[in-house]
């Protein structure tokens, strides 16, 4: 089994966006442009996360999924705003392959069981947004880090697996977008509880960071945004079209000032292979 390297694309309306700790979203361009690049660059899978998840935007999202499935012949996971069995059916029908639930599952955990009955356990993953207080207590967020759940995060991790969720994706909100290292302490705390494939997201800023996470047995995959996105944007030939919607301050400003170590998927995979992590190359 190879460990998976998954570019994660946060989507707002027609745009790819990226922020810090899920806030201050910069528009980075067209999601299709990036997903096609990543497909060519040996991505093992792609995640689309709809950050607004409003009912109004659903049509735009489904159109995007459909278009992506025409260019990218690797698995496409979709998360953000999936509320019902019907929503999942729509994602799959349009070319998505699996989904991650968050808010909907926290509100009504029975949706996990119900959707598994229809689509099988391997199609239904749960995404978890984790944050911590200065005192070191971990808690669950939802709605793209905007709301706080009163459920105990450790109980929740056990419960979703008992209910049959096929995969868990963890985003460390405090680390997201900084590229200054990950939440390994939290991984240590939950590692024993994990029985299904785990995807880690948030904080990767170097090859070494990715290695440190993938060393964990149960971390089956790592999802990365900033390093990969900025790598494309910093290329001289990168061009973008300004749409009516979006925050273009970053793209139209001085991109050279960006302090972020960037790399491509293939570059990362070559490094990991050298370090004896099994990756598909």
């Amino acid at each position, binding site marked *: *089994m*190879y*460990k*998976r390297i998954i570019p994660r694309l946060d989507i707002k309306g027609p745009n790819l966006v990226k922020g810090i700790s899920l806030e201050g979203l910069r528009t980075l361009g067209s999601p299709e442009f990036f997903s096609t690049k990543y*497909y060519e660059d*040996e991505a*093992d899978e792609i995640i689309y996360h709809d950050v607004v998840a409003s009912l109004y935007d659903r049509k735009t999202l489904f159109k995007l*999924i*459909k278009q992506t*499935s*025409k260019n990218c*012949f*690797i*698995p*496409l996971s979709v998360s953000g705003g999936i509320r019902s069995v019907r929503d999942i*059916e729509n994602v*799959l*029908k*349009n*070319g*998505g*392959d*699996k989904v991650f639930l968050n808010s909907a599952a926290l509100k009504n955990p029975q949706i996990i069981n119900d959707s*598994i*009955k*229809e*689509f*099988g*356990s*391997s*199609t239904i993953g749960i995404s978890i947004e984790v944050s911590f207080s200065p005192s070191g207590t971990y808690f669950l967020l939802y709605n793209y880090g905007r709301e706080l759940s009163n459920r105990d995060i450790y109980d929740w991790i056990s419960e979703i697996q008992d209910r049959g969720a*096929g*995969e868990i994706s963890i985003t460390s909100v405090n680390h997201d977008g900084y590229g200054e290292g990950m939440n390994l302490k939290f991984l240590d705390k939950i590692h024993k509880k*994990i*029985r*299904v*494939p*785990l995807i880690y997201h948030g904080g990767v800023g170097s090859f070494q960071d990715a290695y440190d996470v993938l060393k964990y*047995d*149960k971390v*089956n*995959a790592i999802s990365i945004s900033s390093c990969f996105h900025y790598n494309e944007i910093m290329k001289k030939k990168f061009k973008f079209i300004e749409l009516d919607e979006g925050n273009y301050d970053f793209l139209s400003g001085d991109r050279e000032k960006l302090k972020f170590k960037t790399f491509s998927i293939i570059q990362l995979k070559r490094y990991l292979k050298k370090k004896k992590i099994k990756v*598909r190359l």
Partner: protein
Amino acid sequence: MAKALIIDLKLNNIGSVIESFKKIDVECTTKLTKKNIDSADFLVLPGVGSFPAGMKYIKQNKIDVIIKKFSKSKQKKIVGICLGMQLLFEKSNELGLTTQGLSLIKGKVVNLNTKLKPNNKSLIPNIGWHQINVKNRDKLFYRKINKQNYYFIHSYCVETKYSKDISSYIKLDGKKIISSVQRENIFGFQFHPEKSGKKGSFLLKSFVSSFVK
């Protein structure tokens, strides 16, 4: 141009499957009209979904009758992908109940966790890329796909009654897990060729040129 009849179980990744066949110039239809059924060179039963939900839909819409009739013309081919392959078998115990399958291949569908016990280290569902090992390399098609990487996503696996129906396997925790089967004109892939990048597309193309037209 080869023609494919893609079965839409309303719970599978039908979009991806159609796109990947279109990409290799296969004409696709999902409408189960007599004309489409008669003119199709092969029938595809795609993956994703639970076994009981898949069979329920097949029975309710009498698709089992269509598939069984289709399988009788030996020049026509049937391809099951992931759950679609599992549905070709006699029975499954997914979700803790025994459900009868299409019985086109002898054998059953079992839980991967149970299968791997007691030495299981793998996280189930088995999600990710594996290199497959082809069992019988007589046919050019199988030589072409041997040792290639394909994308898997499943919590159940098949056990065949006849070992000659096994065409390839992967290894999980030291155990052989069947990754593809063939019995005469019936083919099954546990992995998703339509989601396995350029190698997957190459497999589909080779399949069509080797067995269909």
